[in-house]
């Protein structure tokens, strides 16, 4: 079964890249390079080091922003999920944050925090945090009541109930929120580099577009997607080692 799902994944990638190659060869647009051209640009940038230098720049707001969003987001989400008062106090903020047109807000952030790392981290956080908070809080609220009662009847303290029942029970939805949040964080990091100051990967994209080096531009975009996918897979691996029995439903339910 595992090898079959792997085969299907490879097949799906082959179909996608094949379609890309064909579309590039037709070509659908002069600004659309083929898959192979993009890959050779990618390897060239990896070879001469430009890509690594760019990522050293891009990863700073990304890692800091995603880390803040994950810790703060799960923390606030737990709090909001456990207490009605904090639900009413905080939920509206994150719902507004999620719905806000971020690109339009970036000039305000730049005005307040300048063009440095702070603004970029904030953009990543605004993208990543709401979905983490909202998923965590709803998962916490939906912990099956009988599990909490079970823990209390076997003399669990309030802290035990949170650590040994609520958090593990909520973990699949918390991780789903983390995955969505992290992908949104990647989008936020690139958005910040395109809208605030062109640095890192955003700079490669902006610069190669301005000199019509489309293979490099698509190579940069491809690399960020690849990184996001790898990171999401890592998250999934962490989740399945931490909570083994959780992913599968009950056979007879």
């Amino acid at each position, binding site marked *: 079964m595992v090898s079959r799902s792997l085969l299907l994944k490879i097949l799906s990638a082959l179909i996608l890249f094949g379609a890309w190659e064909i579309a590039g060869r037709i070509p659908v647009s002069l600004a659309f390079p083929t898959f192979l051209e993009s890959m050779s640009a990618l390897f060239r940038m990896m070879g001469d080091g430009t890509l690594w230098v760019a990522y050293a720049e891009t990863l700073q707001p990304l890692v800091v922003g995603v880390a803040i969003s994950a810790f703060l987001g799960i923390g606030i989400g737990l709090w909001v999920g456990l207490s009605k008062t904090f639900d009413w106090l905080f939920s509206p903020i994150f719902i507004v944050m999620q719905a806000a047109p971020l690109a339009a807000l970036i000039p305000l952030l730049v005005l307040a925090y300048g063009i440095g790392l702070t603004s970029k981290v904030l953009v990543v956080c605004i993208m990543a945090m709401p979905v983490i908070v909202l998923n965590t809080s709803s998962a916490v609220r939906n912990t099956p009541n009988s599990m909490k009662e079970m823990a*209390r009847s*076997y003399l669990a303290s309030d802290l035990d109930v949170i650590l040994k029942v609520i958090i593990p029970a909520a973990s699949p939805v918390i991780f789903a929120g983390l995955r969505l949040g992290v992908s949104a964080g990647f989008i936020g990091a690139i958005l910040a580099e395109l809208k605030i100051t062109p640095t890192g990967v955003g700079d490669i994209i902006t610069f190669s577009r301005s000199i019509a080096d489309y293979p490099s531009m698509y190579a940069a975009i491809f690399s960020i997607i690849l990184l996001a996918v790898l990171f999401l897979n890592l998250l999934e691996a962490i989740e399945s080692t931490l909570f083994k029995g*959780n992913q599968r439903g009950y056979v007879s339910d």
Partner: protein
Amino acid sequence: MDMSQTDAPIEPVDAAHESAVSTRNISKNYGEVEALRDLSLEFPRGQLTSLLGPSGCGKTTLLKIIAGLLEPTSGEVEVNGKTVTGPGPDRAFVFQDFALLPWASVIRNVAFGLEMRGVPKAEREDRAAHYIKEVGLGGFENAYPHELSGGMRQRVGLARALSVDSQVLLMDEPFSAVDEQTRRKFQEDLLNLVRNENKTFIFVTHSIEEAVYVSDQIAILLPRPSRVSEIIRPTGFRHKDADNIRRDPEYLDIVDQIWASLRTYVE
């Protein structure tokens, strides 16, 4: 026919010190709704008492009040002479939906109560393994709940309740979510358990046959607001072995009699 009945409220059948659990004048309101009104009941030590009644009669509410999971609006519960203020080590609960932790293996689920009591890991796993064997799940220690059938999952729930060695076992419709054949096996096993373990069992069920089959004492609850209408103590066939109970005339009479008094309350 050897069978004692009285009208509610009931005086204890045995002397007061023979009661492991007593509930005194319990009332429970949910806002406007009166779930239980002035309910007093004695649960004799070492015996199995069933709470039987139509749905909505508050039998699970009463059980959760005894467990300390719900607070009564008024009245009090005593377990071994001590007033209940919350869950305690003297009571263990078996849940209708099993309430297992899906991310934990069978042995961790069974050891959960011991873990909460601060028993060291090696010791609690020894004791858990012992009770897993006792309920007939030897070899499944490292399985996860989703790999087990409904009946096996309830055996895990039962092992968890036995492993903490509480004096009182509270069972909330424990067999209602398992199939008919498994349920019969469970009922037979329960009879042996009551006979062999010196524990007091309080058993909520909506099945008349099940109640008569397993109980030393049956409290019939009637709804809106809930009160004890009768107490029935089937005694004539208690000494018989499991196979012959269902053919005993007294068993059949009691089943009929309970149905006669309940039928008007069933919509």
